């Protein structure tokens, strides 16, 4: 998801100027002590270079505070990251990580020969493409609409309404769609009673892509609009005013002022989306996989889950997961490069 938000590795140095935390005096001192090497802590003499031991002792409370959190990331992020090396092993649970034999690229070769794997890749790309075309503009359109509401009260009410579904679980969202569009759902029954036979929309493999896209729009378009609304709020209103004076109607103002104003945000989110091109709503699809069958709904994540955890093909499915991760990473880097070339800021510098 929020893949390359790592943007600036040192956010400290990029604080917005209006945040009070770096008072002018502070930054001056920082510079002064920086030239001397080891900087001193607040309120103490930023004197000569202190020994490692002294610094450790001085910061021990702060460092101790970091321990549980860092430990968490080590165990539940970096350890599994390293654990991806079983993609190069014929991993057997009873032999364990150390006992399983190394097989080099065999898992990857076997994977690429599996037709199911290619079905999963194809479905993933198809869903990603449809979502890029149909889902991606939804938060922008919604933000444009909310932004056009002049009464603050109405706007706030609408924001409350459209943000809410974001906080529901996928189980609840799919359950709600079921009661409306399922075989016995209210809309389905209504349409059937009036001579339109749609069948069970929830079980139709042919329209599955559009079903999950509309679910995503219902759940997350509102939440996605927040960032665009913020970008629109930061556009200088005098631009609109002078444009209106020059006779530009609302459509022209939107096209020439609002949209260019939110372009950096659009590009950034597009880059992040490209990085996520191989992950499409895992829980959402997992929950509905039984309804529409594997052919229509198997995506890379569900493939990894069913072949690995369910069928016990550890090495090969880890290989699939690793490939997905690496491709996502490369996509972000490439998309960002491309954005820079076009003169955009991108996700990171």
């Amino acid at each position, binding site marked *: 998801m929020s893949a390359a938000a790592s943007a600036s590795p040192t956010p400290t140095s990029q604080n917005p100027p209006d945040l009070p935390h770096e008072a002018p005096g502070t930054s001056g001192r920082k510079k002064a002590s920086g030239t001397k090497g080891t900087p001193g802590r607040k*309120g103490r003499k930023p004197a000569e270079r202190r020994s490692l031991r002294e610094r450790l002792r001085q910061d021990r409370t702060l460092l101790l505070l970091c321990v549980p959190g860092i430990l968490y990331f080590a165990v539940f992020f970096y350890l599994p990251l390293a654990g991806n090396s079983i993609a190069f092993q014929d991993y057997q649970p009873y032999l364990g990580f150390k006992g399983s034999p190394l097989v080099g690229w065999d898992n990857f070769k076997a994977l690429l020969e599996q037709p199911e794997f290619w079905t999963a890749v194809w479905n993933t790309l198809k869903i990603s493409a449809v979502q890029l075309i149909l889902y991606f503009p939804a938060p922008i359109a919604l933000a444009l609409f909310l932004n056009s509401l002049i009464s603050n009260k109405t706007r706030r009410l609408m924001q409350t309404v459209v943000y*809410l579904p974001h906080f529901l679980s996928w189980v609840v969202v799919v359950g709600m769609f079921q009661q409306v569009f399922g075989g016995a759902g209210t809309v389905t029954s209504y349409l059937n009673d009036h001579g339109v036979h749609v069948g069970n929309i929830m079980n139709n493999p042919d329209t599955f892509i559009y079903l999950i896209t509309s679910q995503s729009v219902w759940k997350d378009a509102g939440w996605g609009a927040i960032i665009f609304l913020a970008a629109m709020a930061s556009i200088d209103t005098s631009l609109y005013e002078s444009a209106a004076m020059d006779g530009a109607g609302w459509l022209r103002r939107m096209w020439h002022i609002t949209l260019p104003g939110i372009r950096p945000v659009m590009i950034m989110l597009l880059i992040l989306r490209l990085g996520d091109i191989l992950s499409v709503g895992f829980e959402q699809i997992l929950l509905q996989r039984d309804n529409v069958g594997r052919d229509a709904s198997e995506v890379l994540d569900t493939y990894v889950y069913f072949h690995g955890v369910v069928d016990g093909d550890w090495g090969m499915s880890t290989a699939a997961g690793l490939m997905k991760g690496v491709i996502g990473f490369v996509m972000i880097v490439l998309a960002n490069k491309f954005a820079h070339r076009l003169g955009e800021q991108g996700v990171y510098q």
Partner: protein
Amino acid sequence: MSTAPISTTLRPESQESRESRKGRTGSRKRRGSAERPAWMEQPNPAAQTLKFIVIVAMIVAVGYPFLLAIGTSLSSKAELAANGGYVLFPSHPTLEAYRVVLSGGVITRAAVVSIGVTVIGTALSLLCTIALAYGLSRPRTFAGKPLLLIVVGTFLFTPGIIPNYLVVQELGLLDTYGAMIAPILLNAFNIIVVRAFFQGIPDELHEAARLDGAGELTILCRIVLPLSKAVIAVVGMFYAVTYWNSFFNAMLYINDPDKLPLQVVLRSYVLQGDTFNAKALGVSVLPASTALSMAVLILAVLPIIAVYPFLQKYFVKGVLTGAIKA
């Protein structure tokens, strides 16, 4: 949550936009009408109608599924049968379905598990988040930058399902409540949000406290935390919602039916069509199964609806702070 730096767009203009907003309200007072700026053309009735229709459509799209679920959960068997399965406004509302669901059977048990996991998990998550965010928020701490990189690095890559599963297995957490908490204990985004907020607290406060002899822990508890209630409430809500809604981890790591949380149970009844079993629910006669399903669904939504209005005004700010800083 896809969030990332939108610094360039947001940072420099914030001052101006605040001013212009002031200007706008000023002009409103002069004109005495709505908040429409003077330069904007008068509303076109067709456009107004269209906007109104869109507003109503959005409210219906979000509200209708909720109302339908509530109505159905309150309906009697006969009424549901007469209306083809779902009822929007029951003529004789009955709480029978809720009574059955909460009578001590599997669903009550699952709700208790979910509440327990959410409460304990959120408390632990907040504790670790605050500690780590504070540890990383002070300038020039020993090894501060590498530690921050460890946190931010988690944005770049996802380790994958299988290695995560193997780690949980190796730690002996399979089939324990811990498996529903430990793997999602911390979220780098939340840490960045809290850290950014802590950094916004003026240094003078720290310095004054230190002159009075306060250590870092005292400063954190006595000065920083009381000033950070809003951001802690928002981040706490994000964590609580994650725990409450988490479904896949439970499905992956928990086999013991007594330890399953509400979301997994909800899935088996509502989505997989498992039939309700009177004995498992701890009652003798069952109401309609759709009413029961919807009662479980409402149960799974209720806590979120309950806290949402209180936190709504804060979370936009929380999200944006994180977005600017990340």
